[in-house]
Each structure stands twice: as structure tokens, then as C-alpha cells.
């Protein structure tokens, strides 16, 4: 349940450490983003102080794919699962990832959205 102002961790090596969700994409007045939804984020913190190693800079606005949520995700068979934190992977407008590696566990549900 990611919404505006939610601070999210970044699960790839794009250089950002935390981002803030600015918009939940996907509909008129869509309030919450769940696993697999795309949000617009603004970079809050970087992993390194040096900007050379990161592809992003503070305050830049990107799109991001939600890859981990603390909110339970219900599968069609009734089972549910949830992860330890809320995390995203930064992507560009075309849907291509900005980082080259993903860190931490990612649920299989995201396979249909090729990342």
C-alpha cells in the first residue's frame, strides 16, 4: 500500500538509497500502489556521497516499479505473502531499468512484468 509521500527503499544499484513516492500511476484517483505497480518517485538519498558512482542525483524524478511490500499480497489460491520492507526498482519512461542489478528477494509475481 504505497501512496504519495511514502518513503521507499531502492532495490537496485542505480545509486539511490531512498525515494519518495510522488504519484501512483494507473488510474484516476488511484490511491495505493501494490506489488507490481508503477509509481513516480523523487530521489531522497543516495547510497554514496560521491555522485560519480550513481546514475541518479538527489531530487531527480523517475518512475519506479514496486518490488517489495510489507502489505500482504493475496494470490488467487488464497495464500498470501509479505516482505520485510517497501522497496522499488527505478525504471525510465520506456520501462527499462536504470540499475543493472537487483538487491534482495523479489516475488515471482513480477515475472509477467519483465524486469
Amino acid at each position, binding site marked *: 500500500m504505497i501512496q504519495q509521500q511514502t518513503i521507499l527503499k531502492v532495490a537496485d544499484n542505480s545509486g539511490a538509497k531512498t525515494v519518495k513516492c510522488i504519484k501512483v500511476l494507473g488510474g484516476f484517483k488511484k490511491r495505493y500502489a501494490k506489488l507490481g505497480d508503477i509509481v513516480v518517485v523523487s530521489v531522497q538519498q543516495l547510497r554514496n556521497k560521491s555522485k560519480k558512482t550513481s546514475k541518479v542525483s538527489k531530487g531527480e524524478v523517475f518512475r519506479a516499479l514496486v518490488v517489495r511490500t510489507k502489505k*500482504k499480497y493475496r494470490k488467487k489460491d488464497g*495464500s*498470501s*505473502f*509479505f*516482505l*520485510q*520492507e517497501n522497496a522499488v526498482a527505478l525504471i525510465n519512461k520506456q520501462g527499462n531499468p536504470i540499475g543493472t542489478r537487483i538487491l*534482495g*528477494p523479489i*516475488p515471482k509475481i513480477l515475472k509477467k512484468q519483465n524486469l
Partner: protein
Amino acid sequence: MLFVRNDSKRFRFCRSKCHRNFNKKRNPRKVAWTKAYRRTRGKEMAVDSTFDFEKRRNRPVKYDRGLMGKTIVAMRRVEEIQQTRDARFFENRMQDAKAEKKKQARVEIEKSIELLAPAVANREEVMRNVIDSAKSRIAARKKSSNKLTTTPNSAMVEG
């Protein structure tokens, strides 16, 4: 419910009791109602060949209906065997306790034999009453059956 930690370790909870204890960071080996505790303390079987059937194998098996059917039958049988072995384990564990219980019961009876005496006397009287009433009932039935046999023989012949 499944919880995936950041180190990719999966934890399954059957109900909120388990979930809440996990969140409190309690060590299941020290919490008395968990299987982990019971197994480490030797209260339940920890090592048994039936447990090998339940292990997770990460090799995918091509779907075969016959195999599925056989697996279900096998599961039932393994469950049976496990239960009998559990019962036997429990028996073995409680053997000493049984002898102890008998000894203690004997001691208690010896101590409080006076409490039992009036009850025993009453019981004898009750039994006597029961036997007497039964005897009288049998006698009455015999009388009535005698009466029946001495009534007209024609009815008996036809029947």
C-alpha cells in the same frame, strides 16, 4: 501466511499466535508449545524415517496422474505409520510414570481407607437390593410363563 525476510529466508505461520511470537523475536526452541521445543526436549520423535517423506525436494517432477494418485495413498499410509510410532514413543516415555502412578494410588488408598469404608458398605447394600429385585422379577416371569404353557394346547399346535 508467508513472510519473506530480506535474506530470502521464508517463514510460514499457521496463525497469528505463531506470527506474534515470531515478531517478539522469541526463540521457538524455548517456547513450550512449539514443535521445535518438544523435539529438542525429547518429548516427541525428532528422528524418524517417516520424516524423510515430508522433505522438500527442489527437483520438479513431470506431472503424472498415476503418480499423483499413488502419492496421495502413500501420504495416508505414512500418516498412519507416523501416528502409531508417535503413540509408541509416548508409551515408552510414560512407562515410568505409569508405575509411579500405581504406587501413588496404592499409597493414597491405604491412607484414606476410612473414607472408603462407608461407601463400600453402602455399595454392598445397593448390590443386595439390585440382586433381590432381579430375583423377584425372574420369579414373576417364570410364573407367567408357566401360566402360558398350561393354557389350551390347540393354540400351540396351530402355531
